[in-house]
């Protein structure tokens, strides 16, 4: 006895001895508690860190409360808006699209953002990271991601190719981080900042196209922002400006917050599930521990212990397990929470305030680490402490009460006569402790179901992306700044090798008007040829556009939200260019669920409405090679061909660029889910290892008897392995079945978060096959150690086992 132990009462020395006397068991229980506590710590920590740091950085960036896309304007409009009631400040933004030569010699698109306000006072502040805070004339500040991606920094000189193919060399004065970009910033992040003095040097006319406004009062109040937005709309209308797009954001909420919250919410649900699983695992282990300790409980009662004293001792033991798990899980959870937050910060582009302990997360961890084991252990403890001295000491070998009738499972097992004797023993052993089997199956089944579901969710989300690409099937999107004759463009495009088809599209912005002809919203009008193979719409109501349609629209489901009660056959009043007219809704199509209004009309009619005559500003091109590389190559060829002939190109983009970015983003999301799935799987595997060890440990004497009557080592090994495999396979079948509803729920929740629309659930064999392999490996692995131990013990050792 160590000196400090002498200060403990004998009963507490027993608790201590139970804790350190059987290290494997302690490790098993502590690990099963720690997994759950760790998961909750990680998720709860990031749940507090991410939104708080993200919103703080956003608020500190003086973000625009109102952003309006309109036709080109100059500083006069900015001044007019600044004088509008409720406006605190306003600024114009202009994005100059150029291409920059990377250090590897490739030419990539670069957006150069110019503003009128000085950097330190502007709306949508950027956080200076290195070098100059403000770009001088003909200098640029490079955004963090671009600087990191291409390893560029202050002092480097960029070679830029302008719209007219002339070359400019621009010095990087510094780097800065964009704190205000929403989801769009995640996919279009090659950018830099220039002073408005540099616009003309880049061979661009001096104008702005995006208006940024901050409200004077109530910048966190959506109603106050809306009121100011209405005033600004009036100011714009007075000067004849149409609104193409308007966005409103309160200062204290990052535009990405709702998406992120939803994703963390999903992780939180999974964390709770892991806690639940680890709870059932703890209950299993503690039941086994109490069974093993029954003789000791009997002895304690024999020498005078009352039930409450025994309950107190074992609850203290459970609390000690909880405390040990907290020692492991709290630091690991805090670290993982910060790592997860850092990952999210990198993805969304905001700075973290630095590593910190989140007291709320730790309190939750402490509550879970202590409360869940107590909750899981209270029943086994109360039951164990209630056992009579006689049955505890005799291990039930005295004459027992007549048991109730055999269960259905036992009756079924009794009928299994065709199996070989050893196999029969394994099967019966599997079902011997039914309560333990149920809890083990529960953990493994749920772990497996989530594991399989994660793969299915990934496929479902990819389906969603495919759904988006149904509307954007072109391999190359060629957009000009003004319409060009179709025959000219088509001939030039067809001159490029591998081009299969070219389609002219009419694309325009329109305003939605109310009964008084006031602008209430804006929408994007898309006009592909009536039978374009590049659009495969998912029609939910009505029909798709037809060649003989006039003033007919097929609208996206966002209309249903913005115009409640809208149905096929209704009319909407639109202002397209200067023309006001009623348009009939002939169909509703399902898109991603975004809130922006999109409507399709066919090319011929829309082109006429937009005053295009046999010309178009947008062309959609297909090729034989649909890979991103093939598309990019073709885009470069087309770009070169048209630029060489002096066409005013807005952009030439490979079709797969955006979908690839979204897929990458979803890949990141599913990586989070896979981590959670692995955590649940690890709870399951700890559970299985524990159950099998406990089963074998309790049956040590029986194994001795089997060996005494001739069972050889391999047979004993096989008995335990078959038992493990049986548990694994049963859990696999149940998990596979359960994965269907879980996939559905998970995919829906995530899809709603990202696309604001439910997912179309899809399934892949991949998850099922991988989990089957994992389960078999787990079963064999978890059985192997107890099986080897059992087969190695001598008959004398085994029969003497207490």
């Amino acid at each position, binding site marked *: *006895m160590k000196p400090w132990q002498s200060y403990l*009462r*004998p*009963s507490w*020395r*027993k608790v201590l*001895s*139970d804790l350190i*006397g059987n290290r494997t068991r302690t490790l098993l229980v502590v690990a099963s508690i720690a997994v759950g506590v760790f998961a909750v710590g990680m998720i709860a920590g990031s749940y507090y860190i991410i939104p708080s740091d993200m919103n703080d950085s956003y608020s500190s960036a003086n973000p625009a409360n109102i952003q309006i896309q309109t036709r080109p304007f100059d500083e006069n409009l900015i001044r007019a808006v600044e004088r509008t009631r409720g406006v605190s400040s306003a600024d114009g933004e202009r994005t100059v699209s150029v291409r920059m030569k990377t250090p590897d010699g490739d030419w990539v698109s670069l957006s150069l953002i110019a503003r009128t306000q000085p950097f330190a006072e502007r709306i949508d502040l950027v956080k200076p990271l290195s070098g100059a805070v403000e770009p001088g004339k003909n200098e640029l500040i490079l955004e963090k991601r671009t600087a990191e991606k291409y390893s560029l920094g202050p002092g480097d000189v960029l070679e830029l190719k302008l719209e007219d193919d002339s070359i400019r060399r621009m010095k990087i004065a510094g780097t800065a981080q964009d704190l205000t970009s929403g989801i769009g910033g995640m996919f279009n992040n090659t950018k830099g900042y220039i002073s408005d003095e540099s616009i003309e040097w880049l061979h661009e006319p001096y104008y702005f196209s995006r208006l940024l406004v901050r409200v004077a009062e109530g910048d966190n109040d959506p109603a106050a922002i809306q009121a100011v937005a209405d005033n600004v709309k009036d100011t714009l209308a007075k000067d004849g400006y149409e609104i193409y797009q308007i966005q409103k954001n309160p200062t204290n909420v990052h535009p990405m917050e709702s998406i992120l919250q939803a994703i963390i919410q999903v992780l939180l649900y999974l964390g709770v599930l892991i806690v639940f699983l680890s709870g059932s695992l703890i209950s299993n282990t503690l039941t086994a521990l109490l069974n093993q300790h029954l*003789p*000791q409980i*009997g*002895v*304690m*009662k*024999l*020498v*005078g*212990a*009352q*039930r*409450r*004293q025994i309950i107190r001792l074992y609850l203290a033991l459970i609390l000690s397990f909880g405390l040990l798990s907290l020692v492991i899980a709290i630091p690991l959870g805090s670290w993982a929470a910060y790592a997860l937050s850092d990952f999210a910060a990198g993805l969304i582009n905001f700075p973290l305030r630095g590593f910190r302990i989140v007291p709320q997360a730790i309190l939750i961890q402490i509550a879970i680490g202590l409360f869940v084991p107590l909750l899981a252990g209270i029943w086994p403890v109360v039951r164990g402490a*209630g056992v*009579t*001295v*006689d049955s505890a*000491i005799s291990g039930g070998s*005295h*004459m*027992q*009460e*007549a*048991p109730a009738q055999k269960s259905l499972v036992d009756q079924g097992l009794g009928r299994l006569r065709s199996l070989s004797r050893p196999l029969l023993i394994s099967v019966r052993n599997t079902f011997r402790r039914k309560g333990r089997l149920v809890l083990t199956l529960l953990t493994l089944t749920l772990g497996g179901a989530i594991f399989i579901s994660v793969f299915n969710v990934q496929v479902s989300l990819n389906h969603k992306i495919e759904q988006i690409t149904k509307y954007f099937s072109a391999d190359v999107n060629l957009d000009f700044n003004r319409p060009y004759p179709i025959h000219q463009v088509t001939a030039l495009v067809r001159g490029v090798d591998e081009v299969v088809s070219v389609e002219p599209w009419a694309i325009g912005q329109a305003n939605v008007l109310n009964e008084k002809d006031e602008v209430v919203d804006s929408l994007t009008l898309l006009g592909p040829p009536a039978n374009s193979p590049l659009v495969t719409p998912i029609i939910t109501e009505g029909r798709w556009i037809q060649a003989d349609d006039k003033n007919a629209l097929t609208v996206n489901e966002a209309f249903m939200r913005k115009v409640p009660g809208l149905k096929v056959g209704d009319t909407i009043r639109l202002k397209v260019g200067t023309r006001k007219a009623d348009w009939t809704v002939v169909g509703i199509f399902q898109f991603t669920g975004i809130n922006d209004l999109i409507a399709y009309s066919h090319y011929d009619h829309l082109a006429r409405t937009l005053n295009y005559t046999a010309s178009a500003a947008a062309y959609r091109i297909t090729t034989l090679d649909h890979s991103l590389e093939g598309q990019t190559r073709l885009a470069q060829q087309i770009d070169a061909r048209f630029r060489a002939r002096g066409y005013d190109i807005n952009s030439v983009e490979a079709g797969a660029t955006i979908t690839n970015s979204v897929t990458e983003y979803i890949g990141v999301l599913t990586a989070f889910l896979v981590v959670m799935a692995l955590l649940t799987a690890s709870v399951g595997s700890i559970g299985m290892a524990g159950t099998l060890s406990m089963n074998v440990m309790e049956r040590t004497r029986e194994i001795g008897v089997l060996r005494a009557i001739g069972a050889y080592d391999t047979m004993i090994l096989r008995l335990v392995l078959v038992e493990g495999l049986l548990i694994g396979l049963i859990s696999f079948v149940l998990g596979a079945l359960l994965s269907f509803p879980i996939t559905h729920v998970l995919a829906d929740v995530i899809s709603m978060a990202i696309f604001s629309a439910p997912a179309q659930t899809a399934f892949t064999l991949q998850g099922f096959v991988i989990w089957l392999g994992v389960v078999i490996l787990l079963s064999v692995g978890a059985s192997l150690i107890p099986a080897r131990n059992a087969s190695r013990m001598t008959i004398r050792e085994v029969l003497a086992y*207490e």
Partner: protein
Amino acid sequence: MMFEPTKLPLPVDASTPVAALTALHNPKPLLSLRQVVKVYPTRSGDITALKGIDAEFYRGEFVGIVGKSGAGKSTLTHMISGVDQVTSGEVWFEDTPVHTLSEDQKALWRGRHVGVVYQTFQLMPSLSLLDNILLPMEFCGTYQRGKSEERALELLRAVELEDHAFKKPSAISGGQQQRAAIARALANDPPLIVADEPTGNLDTATAETIFSLFETLAERGTTILIVSHDRSLEDRVSRLLTITDGELSEMRSLR
């Protein structure tokens, strides 16, 4: 070295042989069994292990209960020590109706008044011998740091195990474990010791030591009830009961 039972710490209320003798002649029994019946329901029907046992045991008596395997010996010790509940009948310990006590009340009563010794020792494997002896004192509220440890060491010294006080039961021999179990049974100075086949797992020399220990305890006023299937017990006890098929069929005083 041969064990010397005279070194045993004395029971509180029988500090001299005279006191023990007085106790022996006290007409009020320490323990009374009245028409005790124990029935075990089994799948193949009820089995009556005890069929209306009547018996009285007095202070300082050294009683042997012998019988064949399955005769009901162990069941009888369980009824006496309150380890199991009677089906019908009464068990009185002085003025305490043991048969009416709850499990917890019985545990406390047993801890304070009855020391139970089993053939398989039933020591706590995770605790040292010293802790095994301290545990009943703690559970029964008689534990006082320092004093209790002093007494536990005294008991271990009396059973020649002082040097092994901090060892776990698995580190000592069967005979030593049984002596430790007896020391534990004496921890709270109980007036009654019930021993179920206490020498069943021991060699003859060690068994002799254990019997000597019980004799000394009985001489000093502790009532000893030993259950055994070993007829050699007859020569050592003051009274012998024979149990056959759940009935005390023979009862005679040997000394």
